[in-house]
């Protein structure tokens, strides 16, 4: 585990995997409670995508560092998780917040995995190739909902704008540099400025079509947040819940 957490590429992969795991985990609270049965089913499919994508990436790390993917997913100390605060941001069962949050993350992850897939590692590239078609589908599906509900007018537009405003403050956390055990100059940040510019361009275009506005800023490279193990308080609660059953019999098969 220590070797993995000290490896710059592994930490970058871990950041995407942890985003996926926690996003799928938090979103699964909605299973059976979505606003429409059809969208409940679609959201559940996207949660399964996210969890599967996390597993694909944990398997890559497991293979490389001789670790059980479940141990990577469930048995790290809280500070060793590299997810950002946006994915764990509580939506308080507000569908607009859930939707905006998932969409912002999906656009980011799509761009991040595209870049990850270009690195000189055939196994990692193949795994990113497996993920990308589903990721693109998520971006398209969620983007359509942003446009539809944002442009619907009245209550719907107001709720969607409020959701964008609510998450705007933590959205920059997507771009934090990961890895609390790495020196700042060791981190593998994959063209962070370019990534933000491209992400912001896509996001702003969709928001404009939806009649919504949002201002997002790239955090300083030195910012320490979830990606560097300093998580918001709600993350600890989510992790405690996620590992509750596993802790009944540590090391057991489930």
């Amino acid at each position, binding site marked *: 585990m220590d070797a993995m957490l000290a490896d710059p590429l592994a930490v970058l992969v871990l950041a995407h995997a942890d985003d996926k795991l926690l996003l*799928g*985990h*938090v979103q*699964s*609270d909605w*299973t*059976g*409670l*979505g*606003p*429409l*049965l*059809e*969208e*409940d*089913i679609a959201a*559940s*499919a996207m*949660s*399964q995508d996210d*969890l*599967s994508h*996390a*597993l694909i990436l*944990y398997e890559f790390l497991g293979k490389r560092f001789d670790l059980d*993917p*479940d141990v990577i*997913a*469930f048995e790290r100390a809280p500070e060793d998780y590299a997810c950002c605060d946006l994915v764990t941001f509580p939506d308080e*069962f*507000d*569908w607009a917040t859930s939707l905006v949050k998932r969409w912002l993350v999906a656009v980011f992850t799509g761009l991040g995995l595209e870049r990850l897939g270009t690195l000189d590692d055939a196994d990692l590239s193949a795994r990113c190739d497996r993920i990308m078609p589903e990721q693109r589908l998520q971006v398209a599906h969620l983007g359509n909902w942003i446009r*539809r*509900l944002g442009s*619907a007018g009245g*209550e*719907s537009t107001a*709720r969607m704008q409020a959701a964008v405003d609510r998450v705007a403050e933590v959205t920059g956390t997507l771009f934090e540099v990961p890895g609390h055990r790495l020196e700042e100059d060791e981190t593998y940040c994959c063209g962070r400025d370019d990534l933000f510019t491209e992400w912001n361009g896509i996001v702003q275009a969709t928001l404009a079509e939806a009649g919504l506005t949002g201002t997002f800023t790239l955090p300083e490279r030195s910012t320490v947040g979830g990606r560097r193990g300093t998580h918001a308080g709600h993350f600890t609660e*989510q992790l405690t*819940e*996620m590992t*509750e*059953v*596993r802790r*009944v*019999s540590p090391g*057991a*098969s*489930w």
Partner: protein
Amino acid sequence: MSGAANPVKPLEMTGNEDPDKLAEFEQRIADGVLIEPGDWMPQAYRMGMLGMAEHHANSEIIGALPEGEWITRAPSMRRKLALTAKVQDEVGHGQMLYRVSQELGKSRDDMLRDLVMGKTKYHNCFNYPAPTWGDIAMIQWLIDGAAIMNQKTLADGAYGPYVRTMNRINMEEAFHFKSGEDMVLTLMSGTRAQKQMTQDAFDRWWPVSLMFFGPADKPDAEQRPAMRWRMKVERNDSLRQRFINRFAPAAMDLGLVINIVTKDEQGLVTSTKPDEGLVLDETTGNWSFTEPDWDEFWRVIRGNGPCNAHRLSLRRFSYEQGGWVRRAIGAGSTSMPPAA
């Protein structure tokens, strides 16, 4: 999951139907011809099938709730994925069954409103608590196992859309059952704490499983419309016996003890003693058993079970919080239901 084995309002003919059309309808059923939405059917049949499909749909989406609450605590990636997919399937079954019901003349929004306002019911078994991971294993093994037994008979019914939906649902339920069986087997092969968790959950769900099929039918059930028109094709007691014959030996093989239990108001077990009435009749191949507490069954179905209020309030919350989305896309729900 199935909602059709619970008692439904008895179907009676109104006496106003065209006797020639009624005779032709009954002959078609006797000949094994499926009845389709555009076909002539007695009003009592239409209302009966609507009630049955709606009840079943309600059960699917309410049934998603106890298991859905455990996705966040599933103890491995594989289990987390499987449980998410399983609960998604249940919501999907609800969607398919609401479509069947819609074709019989009731809008989806009316059905969802009636559910959250307590005007329509769902299967009784979802009014019981699932306090541990072991309960999730038992729901998938025992309750889905019971559902498959029941729904296989419902797939031999006469109403085409419902029959076809049952066939699709049963394929997915078979996966749920396999998943549950694997979970129980894993837990019973595990640590002492895992085995105890599983036995405790089994104690909670075994009596619920026996009640799953509903109380005994009337002696003349075969002559009454529900069976004559093949809305149901097997007696509740017969299904229950088949379930016990299948699951009692399987449970004992796994090392589980079949107990008679008493429960508190929260549905938690307060005392257990082995069911000494559980004996295999070598001649018939049937296991005898101690009848479950039917007073409890009626208490729960009337709304006084451990989780009735919680399940319904969660559905109501879902219905209300999603209202703005449905209004925005013009999919019904233009107003909130009055307070229950």
